[in-house]
């Protein structure tokens, strides 16, 4: 009995993100209710759900942009709520992409990518810039390195934002509705970059409304409603044979 359980824990590698029994309140309103979720290294997890279901709150809790009220979140073995762990160091390993891009408007595209590596990773300017140019090439906007973000389209800005997060060489990427603020014709170019990233084996947690993306990229699809994980599993299973009535209703509304 004991032997088999230890063997099991040795077989399964420790999750890179371990979310256990997390509660989060906004005032008296529970935004997260007893949410538990493990993400394995290299896994692509996509979270879907109606607005107000707590999916963004859950994602933002992982790098402590939201402080949870109960439960624990452990990232790469470090409890992010523990005062012993420097949250700023944990965050360097957690790339985050926002709905509103949030590029630094007073810095050029190149400077957006090099600021954190130079100041935090103590890279030399040359090293940071060559790495940044490589990333810009990867996201397909190397010709815009020296312009300011205001000169770029929304899709270009979001691709720069992804490159900026990658410049810190994080182990995990968090995406908070990365295509929701984009004009429809620009959604594709951003998703292409994310698919490429997924193919390279990046651990990704992504909140999105792009069901096509979820279907092709996700190893695991999570459906949240009213602050709870209602159903999870392989995307094809969830899309074709949803068990929970709320997921069925949600899919009917959006597909």
């Amino acid at each position, binding site marked *: 009995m004991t032997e088999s359980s230890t063997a099991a824990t040795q077989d399964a590698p420790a999750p890179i993100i371990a979310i256990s029994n997390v509660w989060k309140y906004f005032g008296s309103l529970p935004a997260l209710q007893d949410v538990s979720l493990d993400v394995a290294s290299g896994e692509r997890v996509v979270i879907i759900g109606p607005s107000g279901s707590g999916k963004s709150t859950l994602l933002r809790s992982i790098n402590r942009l939201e402080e949870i009220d109960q439960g624990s979140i452990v990232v790469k073995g470090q409890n992010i709520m523990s005062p012993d762990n420097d949250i700023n*160091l944990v965050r360097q390993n*957690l790339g*985050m992409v926002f709905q*509103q891009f*949030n590029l630094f408007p*007073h810095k050029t595209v190149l400077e957006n990518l090099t600021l954190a590596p130079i100041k935090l990773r103590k890279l030399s300017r040359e090293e940071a810039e060559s790495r940044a140019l490589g990333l810009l090439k990867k996201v397909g906007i190397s010709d815009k390195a020296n312009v*300011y973000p205001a000169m770029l389209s929304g899709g270009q800005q979001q691709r720069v934002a992804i490159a900026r997060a990658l410049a*810190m060489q994080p182990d995990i990427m968090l995406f908070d509705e990365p295509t929701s603020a984009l004009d429809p014709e620009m959604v594709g170019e951003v998703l292409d970059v994310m698919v490429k990233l997924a193919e390279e084996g990046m651990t990704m947690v992504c909140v999105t409304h792009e069901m096509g993306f979820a279907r092709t990229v996700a190893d695991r699809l999570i459906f949240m409603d009213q602050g709870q994980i209602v159903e999870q599993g392989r995307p094809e299973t969830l899309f074709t044979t949803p068990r929970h009535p709320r997921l069925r209703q949600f899919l009917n509304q959006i597909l």
Partner: protein
Amino acid sequence: MHDKKDGSKGNIIMVTEGASIPDPREWRLINAWSIALVGAVSTLFALCLLWPEPYLRILLYLPDGVLITFKITVLSICCAVPLGLLTGLGRISNNRLINLVASTYVEVIRGIPLLVQIFYIYYALSRFVQVSGVTSAVVAISFCYGAYMGEVFRAGITAISKGQSEAARSLGFNGFQTMRYVVLPQAMRTILPPVGNECIAMLKDTSLVSIMAVPDIMQRARSFVGTTYLYFETYTVVALIYLVITLILSKTVSIMEARLNYYDGK
């Protein structure tokens, strides 16, 4: 193209006193600023040419005062701007004690006239240490304007969208680095015009120190009047000199503002 909410121009900040800063995009030759400057300078020249006695004599008597006025203004700016920044940061601090100290400071200082503060600090300080009129003037003006500028800094910093600091924090910057590299450089743009305005208002308010026998422009004028009784002529020249100085300063602020708008994409 998305019109980003962050870095928007500071229409949140209200300015109630001080010279008006010319619009940096106003490049036409004839505008309020150039009319005022040309008018003031040419009036000054005309007066001195047409009636060298007494106008030229008055004009030559005042430069020592201009230097003192500048000295007080520059020293006060050097103290008030950092004080204002600290106050502004204190006002948005989550630390209750710091917040309370900063808020109380602003509340108290804003409720007392500058003239009273100048008197008060001059006589209060002289109970403990012998201070010159210039020193107490600089202390009083810095304290007063530090509080005003604290409000400007606070408004400028809170006008930067939360997404900016979230983006910086998510990269791993700590709170100080986020302020230093991301928020303040952007806030500078909204803060600069009203801070420049406060500096100009400060220059004008230095005229209050003349009552402590500090020989600034105003005090020099008063002593000149005391012997010659040329009230009208003297104060005409004084007014024109103040006007020329503030006009030049407001244009300087305007030029700096234009240079800070480099990343607008326009």
